[in-house]
């Protein structure tokens, strides 16, 4: 399908799709980092949980709805996405209540170590419920959209477009929530200074509740999109976690808009590695794509520890 001589724009197009996934995941991770104040190592496995919850719902949604479709994808896929987002949101709130709140007495390091335990438990539960084999959502195969291929010479499938469009919708919705609503103002205030927020009458418990809901739902969306583009695997979230951390650090820890920017840059770099290799800029190929993204993160840390959009580190 893809022409032998791959156009550089093809890599950029792939980069935009992959960046969308990273941006969605990075926002949630950044929210937790800024409001709950710890590095949540369970965030990758939360994506996996969301992706598998969606897979579970496909089992009953597909017979109910048949193959009616919108935007080139069957309707049941969109409902499964919503189901996965809801399930991950609920699970992350429950996790916070059961695991993180009781350890609150200790500082962020205790929570960080606990989150590793949570990550392992999530993954074990996915293994136990769905087995170890990679799965698919079963969305029918689609070729690239013909007119894009003819005009730009790159292969873009309808599902690529849906992933990017939905990401834009979700990110815009988050932006409006953060800037235009009372909840958003409370969240930004709590992220800025939790004690001050509490003193000025903000119920930080509610803010933290909302933060887990939003972060979990966005992580699940990223997980479902990743499963749609590649495969639904029990290790998919953990394998991508470092790239998400790279995006969050690159953007500046705790800054949601920085996380978006960082996700865009890291996702793009990840997909452009073969092109850079072709041009002779870097000596390694796509097998080291994650390593290149990670090295860029370390380089940024050296030059600008607070990240692109962060204030003081």
């Amino acid at each position: 399908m893809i022409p032998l001589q791959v156009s550089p724009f093809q890599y950029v197009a792939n980069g935009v799709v992959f960046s969308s996934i990273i941006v969605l995941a990075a926002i949630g991770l950044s929210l937790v980092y800024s409001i709950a104040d710890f590095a949540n190592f369970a965030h990758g496995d939360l994506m996996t949980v969301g992706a598998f919850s969606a897979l579970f719902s496909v089992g009953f949604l597909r017979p109910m709805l048949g193959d009616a479709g919108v935007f080139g994808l069957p309707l049941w896929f969109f409902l499964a996405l919503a189901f996965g987002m809801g399930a991950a949101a609920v699970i992350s709130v429950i996790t916070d209540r059961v695991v993180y709140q009781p350890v609150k007495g200790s500082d962020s390091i205790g929570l960080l170590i606990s989150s590793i335990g949570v990550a392992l438990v999530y993954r074990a539960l996915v293994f136990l419920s769905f087995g170890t084999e990679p799965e698919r959502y079963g969305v029918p195969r689609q070729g690239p959209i013909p007119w894009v291929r003819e005009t730009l010479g790159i292969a873009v499938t309808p599902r690529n477009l849906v992933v990017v469009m939905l990401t834009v919708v979700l990110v815009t919705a988050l932006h409006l929530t953060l800037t235009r609503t009372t909840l958003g103002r409370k969240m930004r205030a709590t992220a800025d200074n939790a004690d001050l927020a509490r003193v000025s009458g903000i119920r930080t418990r509610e803010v933290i509740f909302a933060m887990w809901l939003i972060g979990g739902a966005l992580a699940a969306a990223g997980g479902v999109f990743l499963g749609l583009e590649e495969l639904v695997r029990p290790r998919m979230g953990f394998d991508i976690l470092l790239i998400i951390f790279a995006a969050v650090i690159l953007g500046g820890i705790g800054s949601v808009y920085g996380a978006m920017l960082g996700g865009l840059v890291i996702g793009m770099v990840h997909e452009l590695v073969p092109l850079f290799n072709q041009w002779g800029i870097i000596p390694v190929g796509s097998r080291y794509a994650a390593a290149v993204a990670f090295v860029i993160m370390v380089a940024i840390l050296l030059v600008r520890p607070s990240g692109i959009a962060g204030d003081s580190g």
Partner: protein
Amino acid sequence: MSAVSSWVSETLVRDATERRIFATLGLITVLLVVGVLTGVIGPRFLLFQIALVGMYALLSLGLNVQWGYAGLINFSVAAFWGIGAYCAALLTAPNSPLGLGLHPVFGFLAAIVVSAFIAVLIGIPTLRLREDYLAIASLGLAEVIRAIILNEDQWTAGSSGISGIPELLSWLPLTDAATTAAVVVFLIAVVYLFLRRVHRSPWGRVLRTIRSDEDLAKALGKNTYQFKMQAFVIGSVIMAIAGAFYAHLNLYIDPSDLVPLTTFYIWIAVILGGTGSNRGAVVGAAVVIAIREGTRFLNDIGFIQTLGVDLAPLRLLFVGGLIILIMRFRQDGLLPPKDELIWPAARDGSGAGGASASGAAPDGGTSSNGGDDR
């Protein structure tokens, strides 16, 4: 004899909880010995397990220097262990891609030098920053190292692994299992005594200060970055030594053990044993081996096989649950450090006399509070 018993009562059994823990451990030891004598457990199997516990204990001691003494979150334990194992395997195995077949001493030396070098490289960008940056960066480093070992098969033999690693000290008149067990006991003794000595030195006290309040250490004029770097390098070198030992224990190495789960096993060993406590690190390592081997034993029980449950995920669930429970209910671990920083002479009130005893007491206070300050 009385010196031994007083040493035991001073260092091993100080309060009721610890006495219970050591009594349980003693009971398990007795059961194991009875098992060997009655022929239920093969002595060769037991010696191999002892060597494995020893290796985990070395790794835990290494992590304890970084996390327990200095508060550095290192998630690349598996990587430094792998560096050590691969240095030993590549230099000593005749059929490795390098094909050198050198004496094991060179393997250990290379493990020390290479791991120290890489520890400095990763420490330079991360040790100046917030502690959670090191957690993320070190996990990333571990994955990069695993990717390199997996993909550069012209040097590392990739996923097919390296076999034919020679045994250690094969001229000793012991069975190979007994020899490796003796070697690891020797290594642990050396590392343990070394760590106890440096921990009680002024260097160790500065590290404790950094762990509980880095700004305070800076205000006292200490170059905290240098101290953290030294702790990071020492810990990483100990992990690499454990890796080199493992290569000669297992006689085969491949990249599959370099996964982050190996790192988390060591973390459990350290926090379960008691962060900052070397005794705890050794006990924690034994518990972790018991978890791993215990779940493997379950596999052999017919009843569980008929259920058709895959046990690898159950082990994962168990490990994850254990981390959550420790962090919630017993953050200090089984054997929290009490007065490891105090010279025994100072505690007795003899030796250097009251001045040093009163000087040491506040330090002891800080160390026992260290767990709560975290």
